[in-house]
């Protein structure tokens, strides 16, 4: 899996999909395009096997809501991957942020937006603290975030059990139910209404995608983050304040994790300690499938969305086909392996073609 994803962009430290190595390899080698084609092909396949796949309310709406949340999770991981670190506490940071939102709604009676801000602030602080520990001590991010994961696991459970009766904050501020169940069909600009398949919650994901895409593709800070990931020593020597960039990346990761936690809580209905339990694997899967390098220096913002969508579509399709628990994960694994192998084969073939033609 590692080699497959390190291959497509290897030799280039160019950051995002906007700056792909199109000069040397034909356009159809682009990994993101490959993923997109695969997602469309699988959707058509599942749709033809089960027409219900295109049911806007019962299938597409929940599918997109899931993809929205998990894309933000993948982005939270991608940000730290960009500096060559990882965040194993991504799920707990989500739970930590959601705890603050729940607390804000339940005890401080905050409106929806302020609760969300409190949640993001808490996530950002805990992430930045993690980054600060890593930058100051020089201990590997793997160890620090693992320790943070355990610390938060205990802390979040403890706070929920001491603050609530049912180990969850169930107060719902005005607008939360609407945010959960409204689609674009409920939002109209004059006579034109949106699609009932697209959840309103997607707005957070689109915003995160746009901001991060802009950060990495167009700003000096984004390039400094990538340089820190590609070669910390060179970055330091070039005058990049690597310590501060590490804190920034982890702070941003914490913020995105908290946003994902908030979205997950809105999706299920209450703020509870189990939020984010299953975030860690999808966070790596989405980012890495999309072309982000585990070693740092290369990210793909759109790739995180596409990688997450691919897994979501496969899972939903298999669910619709009625595949049982035992087989579901086997199929999921096989299809992902095929997807990655196909990508690798395509890259090798095209590389040979290019070499032959020059």
């Amino acid at each position, binding site marked *: 899996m590692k080699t497959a994803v390190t291959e497509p962009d290897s030799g280039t430290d160019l950051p995002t999909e906007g700056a792909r190595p199109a000069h040397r390899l034909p356009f159809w080698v682009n990994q993101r395009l490959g993923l997109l084609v695969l997602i469309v092909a699988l959707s058509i396949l599942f749709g033809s096997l089960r027409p219900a796949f295109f049911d806007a309310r*019962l299938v597409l709406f*929940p599918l997109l809501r899931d993809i929205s949340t998990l894309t933000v999770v993948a982005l939270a991981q991608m940000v730290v991957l960009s500096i060559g670190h990882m965040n194993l506490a991504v799920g707990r940071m989500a739970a930590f942020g959601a705890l603050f939102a729940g607390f804000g709604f339940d005890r401080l009676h905050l409106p929806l937006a302020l609760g969300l801000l409190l949640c993001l602030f808490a996530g950002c602080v805990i992430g930045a603290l993690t980054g600060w520990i890593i930058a100051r001590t020089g201990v590997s991010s793997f160890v620090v975030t693992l320790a943070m994961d355990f610390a938060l696991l205990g802390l979040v459970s403890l706070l929920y059990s001491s603050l609530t009766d049912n180990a*969850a904050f169930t107060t719902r501020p005005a607008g939360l139910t609407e945010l959960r169940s409204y689609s674009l*069909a409920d939002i109209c*600009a004059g006579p034109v209404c949106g699609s009932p398949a697209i959840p309103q919650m997607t707005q957070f994901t689109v915003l995160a995608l746009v901001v991060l895409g802009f950060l990495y593709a167009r700003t000096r800070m984004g390039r400094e983050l990538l340089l820190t990931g590609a070669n910390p020593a060179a970055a330091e020597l070039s005058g990049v304040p690597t310590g501060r960039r590490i804190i920034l990346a982890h702070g941003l990761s914490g913020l995105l994790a908290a946003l994902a936690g908030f979205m997950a809580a809105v999706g299920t209905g209450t703020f509870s300690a*189990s939020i984010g339990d299953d975030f860690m694997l999808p966070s790596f899967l989405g980012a890495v499938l999309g072309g982000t390098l585990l070693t740092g220096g290369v990210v793909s913002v759109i790739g995180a969305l596409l990688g997450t969508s691919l897994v979501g579509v496969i899972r939903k399709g298999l669910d619709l086909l009625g595949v*049982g*628990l035992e087989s579901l994960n086997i199929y999921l694994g096989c299809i992902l392996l095929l997807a990655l192998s196909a990508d690798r084969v395509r890259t090798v073939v095209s590389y040979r073609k290019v070499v032959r033609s020059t």
Partner: protein
Amino acid sequence: MSRRRSVLSATVTLFLLAASTAACTIKNSDDPGAADTASTRTGGGSAELADGSKTKVALVPGGAHPYFQPWKTAGAQAKKTLGLGDVTFDETAEWDQQKQNDLLSTLAARGYNAFGIFGVSPTDINSTFADLKSQGFAVASLASCPAGGTNDADFCLSTDVELAAYKAAQAAIKAMGGKGALVHLTGNNVDANTQLRMKGVQKAVKETGGKVTLLQTITDIDKDLQTAQKAVSDLLAAKGSKIQGIVSTAYNPAVAAAEAVRESGSKAKVVAIDDDAKILSSIKNGSVTATVVQNPVGQAEIGTWALALLQTKQCTMTKPGQIIDSGSFVVTKANVADYDSARQARTAELKKQFADTYLSCR
């Protein structure tokens, strides 16, 4: 130049996003949160299912667990006897509420129109029920009720977990001779049902007036058997001599405690939960004093039948959201051979209660 263009494009995108969220009006269309409140009919109609061929029932546990295995056969049996369109058993929710919600909507898209659900998260599951009800499906909460006393499903047929834990603790206290130190082993601490179980055990301990003390409550050890085994062997190594009784209100710790007590030769009396083959054999050989069994077969059987009646609109709930105890039974060496007949009797009684009281049929 390109930089300026990119800044411009980013600004335009952000503006469009802001505009789409701020400037647009929210259509005041159908409110998905509102439950379908059909008016209830009264009158002594028949609770015999007339035609269930269009009813497709999905029994959806929170994830894979030995407790739910009887649902599979009970569901298949109900399909045959009631002549239903289909009954499926799907355990792919993997103990994640979001995955369970997705699974339910997928099942709905596949044509299932009645759902018997064990909600992963008791505090969240009412939202799921409300969603399904608003789309016109018949919904039952099986084996666990939503937290907080309100139930947005048509009915909840479940073990009264607090009562079952109370019964188990009482059985343990009786076996201990009414005095000594008791340890409570249970599942996920941040789960509303675990909190109820802890309340039930504490209530039984309190009633002894200080003769029995609750030495320790160990939570979060129902993930798998290994976790439970480790926790129990640690417990016996550290405090084995002080413990006179162990009550387990979760499946894995119960199996682990039975094994550990037998192997270590501890004098502690163990009260377990459920009727797994291992636990039943431990009761027969004396290493487990008693077990509190629940009624999973009854939940699936009665649940499927009532769901079919509700889905076909032949009946409605007299009181929507009714919470019904499916029964829990203390099994000791004395009644280990014939406890199932008591359980079947309870299931038959449940069916009668549904027909006579809980359902209003045409």
